[in-house]
């Protein structure tokens, strides 16, 4: 009985990790598609979302079964609950990646905007946040889980920078009406992408918080705690 329970917990963890791997890849591909103006890659992100959704259902099923049949206690209980929550966040991150891919698809069909360094930084930080969140889950590392939250400020800062740059660009844009429409359109799509990345940062922060809950049984959501 005990062995079976451990096996099931392991299966739950593996399913979640599978989901995490696919989500991470989706984000990477989406940003890559945006940067390289690669329509094909953007399309693979959109197509790949179904698999992630299916995995979320699988995680839900396994955890529900474990909760109902095994009456887990303490850490096991937190792990199951935390895993379900993390899977939800991952699914949302994947959705944001799909969003980025869709915007990129639009941008690919139009001439490129000028290069925005803040956007690249934002992409790197969103990537790093997701990586750190997943890594903290794998290693059950409380400190790393907390660090994800600290990175969020940078993500917010870069999002704002992208917004400012593009608003400035739209304002200064050519007076020709037809071109202005195109410029505004592209800028807004790019702003949406930055917004998606910022959301991904937030969701990664949530994952970090769930990991902290699993590891130390404390809820650090909506609280300012200095653990250093």
């Amino acid at each position: 009985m005990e062995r079976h329970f451990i096996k099931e917990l392991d299966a739950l963890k593996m399913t979640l990790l599978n989901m995490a791997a696919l989500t991470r890849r989706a984000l990477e591909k989406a940003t890559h598609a945006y940067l390289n103006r690669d329509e094909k890659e953007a399309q693979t992100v959109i197509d790949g979302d179904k698999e992630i959704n299916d995995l979320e259902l699988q995680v839900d099923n396994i955890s529900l079964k474990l909760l109902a049949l095994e009456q887990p206690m303490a850490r096991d209980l937190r792990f199951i609950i935390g895993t379900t929550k993390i899977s939800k966040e991952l699914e949302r991150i994947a959705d944001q990646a799909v969003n980025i891919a869709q915007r990129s698809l639009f941008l690919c069909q139009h001439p490129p905007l000028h290069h925005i360094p803040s956007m690249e930084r934002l992409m790197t930080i969103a990537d790093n946040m997701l990586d750190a969140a997943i890594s903290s889950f794998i290693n059950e590392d409380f400190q790393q889980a907390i660090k994800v939250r600290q990175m969020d400020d940078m993500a917010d800062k870069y999002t704002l920078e992208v917004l400012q740059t593009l608003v400035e660009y739209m304002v200064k844009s050519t007076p020709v009406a037809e071109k202005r429409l195109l410029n505004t359109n592209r800028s807004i799509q790019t702003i949406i992408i930055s917004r998606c990345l910022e959301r991904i940062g937030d969701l990664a922060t949530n994952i970090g918080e769930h990991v902290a809950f699993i590891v130390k049984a404390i809820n650090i959501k909506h609280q300012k705690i200095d653990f250093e």
Partner: protein
Amino acid sequence: MKSIRFRTRLLLSFWIVLLVALCLPAYYIHQTLENEILNEARADAYIQLDFVHWLLKESPPFHSNQALDQWCKNVGYHLKYRITVIASGGRVIADSDVKNQKIPLLDNHAGRKEVIGARKLGHASSIRYSITLKRKLIYAAKNINLPIAPSGVLRVAIPLSTVETRLSAFAHKFWGVLFLIFIITMLISFFLAKRLEAPIRKTIQAATAIGEGNYEAHIDIDAGTEFSQLSMCINDMADKIQQNIEMITGQKQELEAVLEGMAEGVMLLDKNGKIKATNQALTWIAKCVPSCIGHRPMEVFLNPEIQDACNKVLSGQEHLKQKVSINSETVYEVNLVRIPDGGAVVVFHDISELIRLEKVRQDFIANVSHELRTPLTSIKGYAETLLDEKFRSSDKAASFVNTIVKNADQMTNIVNDLLELTKLQQKQQKPDQLFPVNATTCFNSAMETCMPMLKEKNIRIVNQLNDSIIVNAEENSLIQVFRNLLDNAIQHSLPETKITVFAQTKKDDVVFGLQDEGTGIPLHHQKRIFERFYRVDKERSRASGGTGLGLAICRNAARKMGGKIWVKSPPDNQSKGSVFYFSLNKPTDSAS
């Protein structure tokens, strides 16, 4: 029983053997002796009885019981034993040891063993404890026929003390001897056991030492063939174990060295699919966890394909080869081999560089044909138009020819640049072919050639170079590097901006930097812009008229002069623009 020491056990068994060996015969001897003594005493008693009977028959007839009793007392007094005459009914009528008055009070003696025996067989004897005399006696009785006591029984009772004394003397001696033998055997066995124990103790010590890994421990004992054989065996065993261990350790170290020296990442999976061992190279691939051991491949690489491949091999497939990309830049060829008794070996071969080179080569071929085809197409188009005689005479013909020449020049440029590049790539400049060159002069001459373009876009050059910066270089190459970088910077700068040139002198080399305020280069393009014909923005750059080889030439020239070239975009503390750096060695003291 197990806790008893060997010596004690040996001693105990000695004693038990002794006890059995001594006591059984001793008991037998004692028994035989006792029987013999008793038989002798019994025979003696019969002799005495016959003698008393003869005396009784010879004496004058007694008229009363008192007379008989008196006679008994007299005879008993002289012979020192008890004489009793019992009437036919069992009543005692005379007794030498009982006073006359008390005789009628005596028990009826008909039930006594010797009396019954005598009545039956004529004579009998018995040994028992006499309550009357309070000692052990031997009784002998026989039928008599006296006038005073018809069909009576005459009995004599002789004390057994002599017999007992003899027997007890024998017993004392026997126990004394036994005790002595005990002491002696104890001592002997003690020393024997000690002698036996010494080699065993030595053997134990040596075996323990060998068990603990000290293979130098040898047993050196001389205690009988068996023990020397045993010790020889153990010594041999120790030697062989040492040899084997040395061999295995050597093999293990070799294997480890091979594994650690491999550029390929290697990991070993156990039956349950968890990582059992890895080499150093694998830890560079795995970034998710600090230590791979005990984790699943999924946790380490966060890659479903690797996990799937591992699962396949663990569940029975013999081997598997798979291309896996861990991220967009790194691709591994993963080889999995099943170990017969469960588990698997997984080898990661990094093929990203191969793939990158392949891509660079493919891109190069595509780009070079594209770059050459574009001018060629227009040359062909214009030339075909000029074939028309009517058109040839028109005033547009001159401009057409001009375009043809312009495009032919572009092609010439490309081909020249390609030749230059090939030349730069072919041979590595030897250090002695480099001479100290003033970089500032080189930059100035490069700037002069770019003057028309600078004027056209109204770009300001901020020259922060000292008057004399001496580096080890080849003058023409250095001018070319400066010219190409400047050219690039001007092309990507917006009008009315500035380009800054600066140099940082380090310990061994000088780093030059050209900073512009242009559009900048996206991060993912930065690695590839030094490739031949690589373009960040394909539409825009071609229109500007470059060959697409400028930076490739710069990189090769810098390398040839022993330096490096790299880019940073945007520059530190800036939001836009980019800065190109390249380093050149300072001349050695002897050269300058």
